[in-house]
């Protein structure tokens, strides 16, 4: 896999949320507004890139790799938990509103399967450069997924899109013009499940369509031969 493929894989092909279905709990809980999704995304990217970098760096030293081998998961957790605590402290100090809004889900990044999964499956056996790219790719892919879900939920549930702080697009007028009302169901957990399900179904349909086209093309090739 070259660097470009490594970078692009997290967006669609191996998207952590839409394809691997990892990190669904915070994704469903915090996607009530775009602002939350962006805040969570930034925190997540920081933790993922930093943990991938540190873990890959540790494993690049043969002797150190052997030493931590029996307790590697514990070491990874200590590193990830420390990074998450740093994010939490910085957020509480500089972005208190976002900190209150995301609540316990910032701390829960520690036990997010994506972070530990990338550390064990990728960073521990690849170079530092590749691990950084993998972290950015997976982090951006997860953030993109959060953004998609949050836009749909906030728009249909509240008729608004909160970009950051007071910067908010109020589309209530459009709803009034179309004589439709917002559906608060979408701001609830059940609404989150429904949006995720619909997005997954759309992605699967596109994938199936592509596979079918590829099969047909192959069949046509064989017939020509």
């Amino acid at each position, binding site marked *: 896999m070259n660097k470009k493929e490594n970078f692009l894989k997290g967006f669609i092909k191996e998207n952590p949320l839409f394809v691997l279905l990892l990190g669904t709990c915070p994704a469903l809980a915090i996607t009530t507004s775009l602002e939350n999704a962006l805040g969570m995304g930034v925190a997540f990217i920081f933790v993922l890139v930093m943990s991938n970098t540190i873990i890959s760096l540790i494993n690049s030293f043969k002797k150190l790799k052997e*030493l931590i081998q029996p307790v590697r998961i*514990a*070491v990874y957790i200590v590193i990830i938990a420390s990074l998450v605590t740093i994010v939490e402290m910085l957020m509480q100090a500089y972005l208190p509103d976002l900190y209150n809004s995301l609540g316990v889900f910032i701390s829960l990044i520690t036990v997010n399967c994506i972070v530990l999964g990338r550390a064990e499956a990728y960073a521990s056996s690849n170079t530092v450069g590749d691990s950084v790219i993998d972290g950015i790719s997976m982090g951006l892919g997860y953030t993109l997924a959060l953004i998609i879900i949050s836009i749909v939920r906030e728009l249909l549930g509240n008729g608004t899109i909160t970009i950051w702080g007071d910067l908010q697009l109020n589309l209530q007028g459009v709803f009034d013009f179309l004589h439709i009302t917002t559906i608060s169901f979408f701001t609830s957990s059940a609404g989150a499940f429904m949006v995720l399900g619909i997005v997954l179904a759309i992605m699967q349909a596109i994938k199936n369509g592509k596979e079918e086209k590829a099969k047909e093309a192959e069949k046509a090739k064989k017939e020509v031969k």
Partner: protein
Amino acid sequence: MKNNLITGLVLSVFALICGLMLSVVNMFTAPIIEERTEEKINNSIMEVCEIYRENKDTYTIDKESITHDEVDSVYLIKNENGEKVEVIYIISAKGYASTIQMMVSVTKDHKIEKSVVISSAETKGNIKTHDFNMEGKDSLEDFDKLAGSTISSKAVRKCFYTALDLSYEDLK
């Protein structure tokens, strides 16, 4: 045995490095967090206590060392003769999605003067702006719960109940 010791030592070294890293970050962020919290509490006190807001020179506000299990902090407003005229409580109660922290001021005649939600991450309804119809009331009879947020409303109700109940003891 030797391998186990080495493994334990390696883990301890990593924990120590991470601990050091955290203390450095904490050194920078702790004063900012403390300052913000203090500022937020001062603003809330100004909001809930009219007597003090209007007559800062005549009245004094003291953070009391009174401890109640249900209360985070107690502030007593005293006049120039040192008589207690009002009490302000910071109370926390478990809501639906988060812990709701409220500041409630109670006058000498045991009536709620005003209340403000200091922190809450509740997702349903706007708990921070809803009028619970408790201003000037000495009981919970007219408490107006927030529609669709039963658990959050129960937490707010509990805060008001605690404030009214404890004021009899603290404003003696």
